[in-house]
């Protein structure tokens, strides 16, 4: 089992969800956690104007997706996220990152099931 954490542009969320649904939904929806995060990479903050002064915040706001999948779905999920989150054309600085992390255990709270069927 793996946990896939993707940091993407907020406006790409819908695209990525649609792409993931095509890959992961097997009749009973798919599982996804989304939150809003701040950070910076090569991309810099957008300049804002405040009383005539130009202000550049250090951080950029992004959306973070977390999905947990069985090993067989990892590559398919990564491909789906890339398709949904990459800026049209050749992509752009700020498109984001995907991290794959080994997942030790997955438990369904409703039934107490564990493992591959509970992910």
């Amino acid at each position: 089992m793996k946990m896939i954490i993707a940091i993407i542009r907020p406006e790409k969320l819908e695209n990525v969800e649609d792409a993931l649904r095509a890959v992961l939904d097997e009749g009973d929806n798919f599982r996804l956690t989304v939150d809003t995060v701040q950070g910076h990479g090569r991309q810099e903050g957008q300049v804002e104007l405040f009383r005539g002064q130009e202000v550049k915040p250090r951080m950029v706001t992004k959306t973070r997706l977390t999905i947990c999948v069985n090993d067989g779905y990892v590559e398919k999920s990564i491909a789906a996220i890339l398709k949904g989150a990459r800026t049209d054309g050749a992509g752009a600085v700020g498109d984001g990152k995907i991290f794959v992390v080994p997942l030790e255990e997955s438990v369904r709270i409703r039934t107490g099931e564990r493992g591959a069927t509970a992910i």
Partner: protein
Amino acid sequence: MLVSSALVLLMVPGLALFYGGMVRRKNVLTTMMMSFVAMALIGVQWVLFGYSLAFGQSVGGAIGWDPSLWALSGIDMAKTFGDKAIPELVFVMFQGKFAIITPALISGAIAERMRFPAYLAFILLWSTFVYDPLAHWVWAEGGWLFKMGVLDFAGGTVVHIAAGVSALVLALMLGRRRDFEKGAAILPNNLVLTLTGAGLLWFGWFGFNAGSAVGIEHPVAGASAALAFTTTQSAAAAAGLAWMLMERWHHGKVTSLGLASGIVAGLVAVTPAAGHIRPGWALVLGALAAIACYWAVQQKSRFNYDDSLDAFGVHGVGGMFGALATGVLCFTPVAGVVSGGSWEQLGKQAIGVLVSTAFAAAGTFVIASVIKLFVPLRCTEEEERDGLDLHVHGERGYHFDQT
């Protein structure tokens, strides 16, 4: 007049919103408190002895004094005030609102770093020893600037210059915010509040300016109020437009805060002139004031002083500009240059500007220095970093992540 008084009081929450939206989230409540608390503190001071100092029997044209006015106890409820068709208490209350909002303006310069107890002590002493005497000099019949013929319809000198200059002095005495020093991004937490505040301020300003026709003899007062209302509207509108255009030219974008600031600059500048100039000239006054204040606000980075919310840049500079412009553009009760008169009025206005500037600056310096002997003016580094709301008031402005 009661409505006008209420309108002016509404400007205090309006100011609280205007300033509150511009600071960082961790300081939003503190900033708003500094405006709100003036209503409580100066509200009491005014009734007890503020009114007496400002408008009591003149002692040598320098200050008012009337023991019978302590807690307004000696006021005859039935008698009308002077030659006005209103009871004296109405006049007391109307003027009281001015006394309340003026010190609150100062809070704009020292936002995010002044200790609350020191602030309370400061506005109480400032109101008593700077505002009340200045109001007496300019507006009381026995006041020496009034007798000299300095025109100040609704408070360009008494309110805006005094507050603006005091704000600058206090800002310099307190020093720059840590994050200002570091050049860190200090962004407003809620411009929606700021715009709402600006709207309330404009609305309330009609009470501030048009209501000040109470100083004109009845029955001409009605016409004067109508003129003041018109010039107030005109100057604000022209100023908003001018600031927008300046910004577009200077930065390529028109900001909402810029429009709000321009509007306020126009309102400030027309305050001393409201009942003295024609509507057409009010448009010119507003536009020029916006340009002057826009330029003044840019100087903060040049001279590296931290007037957090531009109390001096807008109120100080706007007030000075407006007070001087009154001398040039007036047509009643005296004629300024554009109405075929002489430069004499401009000279008198200049005296008013110089006196209010010097007195406010000196008074602020002395009062703040005295307070510093007893309590620190500035908050600690930890309080500044964490934000004053939690440390001073034990509250958070927002709990957005609450379920």
